[in-house]
């Protein structure tokens, strides 16, 4: 069984995003970029399935600028077997990414596509569900456990009230939540080896997908700022404040 893992290059999660002064977006010039944290978890899960003998090949895909190659190399260094860069400098919305992935899935026939549950830049939480819809396949979103048994996969999902378990007919789409696993670091020898693993470069047009945005961004603004308040000296003062607030 093959596993397809879409990985997105995003602002590093440790960096505080700054809105551009002209209100057109977030300033990404000279900002550290990394693989979307949920996608690292997706790559890790695919590798573990391969290590268990459930999967035979892992294909990482990224839709993005030329620099997204670095993200794919990271996936290869972690343990993916080959990579596809669908190169474009445009911002591609989840629907168009899902359409590109649909065509790739039709070519590659993966038993599982494992995506992150959300990209930490657009915070959309859409692509996996959209891909599942376009392929007419089931979806196990927000996964905290994934078990393949024959031609079905059991997914434990993190839901509002706790956990839920579903059984899906394969091929299936899974999106990862934070507690699915702890991604490994790529070792130096593996980073070296990754340089010679195959990486194909394509364009959205190769897959016949129009990436024109459907949503027009009119403005991007900082949220209303919260100013730091006061510090109280001791617990008694805090009790007083809670009483003023009417909660004690």
């Amino acid at each position, binding site marked *: 069984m093959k596993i397809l893992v879409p990985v997105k290059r995003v602002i590093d*999660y440790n960096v505080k*995003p700054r*809105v551009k002064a002209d209100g057109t*977006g*977030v300033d990404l010039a000279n900002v550290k970029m990394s693989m979307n944290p949920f996608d690292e978890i997706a790559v890790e899960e695919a590798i573990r399935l391969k290590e268990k003998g459930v999967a035979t090949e892992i294909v990482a895909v990224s839709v993005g600028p030329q620099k997204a190659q670095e993200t794919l190399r990271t996936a290869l260094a972690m343990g993916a077997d080959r990579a596809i860069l669908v190169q474009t400098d445009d911002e591609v919305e*989840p*629907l168009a990414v899902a359409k590109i992935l649909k065509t790739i899935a039709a070519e590659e026939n993966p038993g599982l596509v494992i995506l992150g*549950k959300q990209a*930490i830049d657009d*915070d*959309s*939480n*859409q692509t996996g*569900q*959209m*891909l*599942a*819809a*376009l392929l*007419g*396949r*089931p*979806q196990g*979103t927000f996964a905290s456990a994934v078990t393949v048994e024959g031609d079905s996969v059991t997914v434990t999902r*993190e*839901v*509002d*009230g*706790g*956990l*839920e*378990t*579903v*059984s*899906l*007919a394969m091929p299936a789409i899974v999106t990862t*939540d*934070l507690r699915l696993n702890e991604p490994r670091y790529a070792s130096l020898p593996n980073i070296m080896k990754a340089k010679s693993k195959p990486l194909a470069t394509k364009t959205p047009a190769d897959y016949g997908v129009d990436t024109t*945005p*459907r*949503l*027009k*961004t009119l*403005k*991007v*603004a*900082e*949220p209303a700022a919260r100013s*730091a*308040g*006061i*510090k*109280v000296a*001791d*617990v*008694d*003062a*805090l009790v007083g404040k*809670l009483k003023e*607030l009417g909660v004690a």
Partner: protein
Amino acid sequence: MKTLVWVEHDNASVKDATLAAVTAASQLGEVHLLVAGSGCASVGAAAAQIAGVAKVHVADDAAYANALAENVAPLVVSLMADHDAFVAPATSNGKNIAPRVAALLDVAQLSDILSVEGPKTFTRPTYAGNAIATVESTDAKLVITVRGTAFAKADASGGSAAVESVSGAGDAGLSRFVGAEIAKSDRPELTSAKVIVSGGRALKDSDTFKATIFPLADKLGAAVGASRAAVDAGYVPNDYQVGQTGKIVAPEVYVAVGISGAIQHLAGMKDSKTIIAINKDEDAPIFQVADIGLVADLFNAVPELTGKL
């Protein structure tokens, strides 16, 4: 414009998150509701009472019992022939179903909206709430999820909508619900609580978390939340997590105990009315957003505070 709102429920009662979605939908036009469930007639009846609702569609079928997206999305799509917008609360079910609907309709989804600015224009948070985007849809139909804390709740009573039963294709045969472990608690629910006490990594372990945070929460009649670090370390279950990838909360008072204030945590609670932080590190980032801060060792301060309330 006619909107169809997906009703979050447990086949017995309407969940609160639906009411905020109704408010958002009512800013777009006529509000219809969809109650898809199994043995859910009482939910349909309750939904018809929600103020401002014109019609309730009830789809009662075993296939809809557990809100499986594979079964619910085609049902929604069939009803969308007659509606201009699909609106769901940004709950785990809403987030699971809505994008599946959007893709089947070939439209882009607007996730987690904070406000309705025009018939096709909305604000929504990006980058963990550090950048608020104003976006306009160019699609013929809209698919939207609504952040519960950003809209007032519609009145659960006072309405008298017509109830109509509808049917869909039922079981798509792709997925099966196996079971759920839903935590039960006597405390207020996190997303609707007036006061929340949250604990972080500093709470050491599950027993210490319970012995320290729970008594304070009980004194304040508060819900209990946690940082991701506290959840990952197993102090409390996953449904306690507040943040970018956990629950979004906006209570009257949020008390952060032993939480550093990472941007991913702030994303889930910085719209709280009053933020109180207890942390032993006076430079902890949480103090940059806290209205009231106490620099102290929580293991002294929290028991003392609980004792004095």
